[in-house]
């Protein structure tokens, strides 16, 4: 039984896992984790070239942008103007219009500044970008972002890098139920069961960075996440059994000797 592909802004993906490229020991380990994860999209950041050391390793030499979709982010941007400026550079560097918008606020919790996120999303969409948007797990804002024309809604499961797992399953489910664009849990996944849980709620995908990069064995965790996302997706499509308050024997009682 084939699942439908994940479709984001008209592009089809067979993997529902998106991984980050930050915090790894080096780009080689990052590339190995990517291969193990089966992910087809990686998030990337844009930063100044170190002009004193132009020979430093380049991400593009380890993860080929022709084979893996680069999803440039706006990490470190606190205003819509910053986000547009950063992503215009990313578009020129790589030619991509599919981007991840994140406008953060307080470094302590890295929650999205939703007012500025809304403004930035509008600016980017007006500029021709296809915007996958990191947002709070608030169904009201999620709806507004979809109405603006965002290509995917990406609510946080828990604070970025915390690994705490989904903190508000009710909200994630409400967002899934109301959305007609893909819903991808972005941030908060700590281990495989968290990713499975997100998929069981009906999310279209999961985006994670630290859960893989800071595992003792990132490549093995990447493989675990691949299976976790598939397992959760399959369970969601299969439709779980009803929960019951008491036991119900699996072996028939009739015909007992």
């Amino acid at each position, binding site marked *: 039984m084939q699942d439908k592909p994940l479709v984001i802004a008209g592009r089809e993906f067979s993997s529902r896992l998106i991984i980050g490229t930050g915090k790894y020991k080096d780009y080689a380990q990052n590339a190995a984790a990517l291969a193990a994860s089966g992910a087809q999209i990686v*998030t990337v950041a844009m930063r*100044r070239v170190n002009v004193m050391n132009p020979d430093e390793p*380049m991400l593009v030499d380890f993860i080929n942008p022709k084979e893996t979709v680069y999803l440039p982010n706006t*990490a470190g941007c606190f205003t819509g103007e910053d986000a547009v400026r950063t992503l215009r550079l990313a578009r*020129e560097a790589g030619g991509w219009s599919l981007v991840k918008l994140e406008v953060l606020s307080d470094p302590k919790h890295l929650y999205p500044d939703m007012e500025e996120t809304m403004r930035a999303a509008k600016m980017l969409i007006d500029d021709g970008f296809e915007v996958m948007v990191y947002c709070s797990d608030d169904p009201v804002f999620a709806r507004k972002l979809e109405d603006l024309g965002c290509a995917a809604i990406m609510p946080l499961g828990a604070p970025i890098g915390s690994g705490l797992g989904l903190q508000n399953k009710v909200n994630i489910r409400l967002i899934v139920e109301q959305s007609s664009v893909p819903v991808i849990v972005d941030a908060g996944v700590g281990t495989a069961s968290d990713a499975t849980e997100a998929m069981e709620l009906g999310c279209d995908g999961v985006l994670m960075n630290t859960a893989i990069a800071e595992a003792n064995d990132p490549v093995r965790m990447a493989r675990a996440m691949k299976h976790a996302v598939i397992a959760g997706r399959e369970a969601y499509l299969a439709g779980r059994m009803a929960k019951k308050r008491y036991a119900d024997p699996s072996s028939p009682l009739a015909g007992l000797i």
Partner: protein
Amino acid sequence: MKITLNGEPHTVEENTSIAGLLGELNIPLAKVAVERNLAIVPRSTFDTMILTPDDRIEIVRFIGGG
């Protein structure tokens, strides 16, 4: 003449193009994007765009991120 390169003062010869600047710095053209005075420099104009005094140039590339 003086320009600002990635936030730091930098000196270049007169009539240096963007491509010339990148070449001088040994930066591979295909792997970076360039902004001049807050406007994107299209890759197709790297050869023809000539730096002028006090230009603020940003050269960026992709790095790991979440």
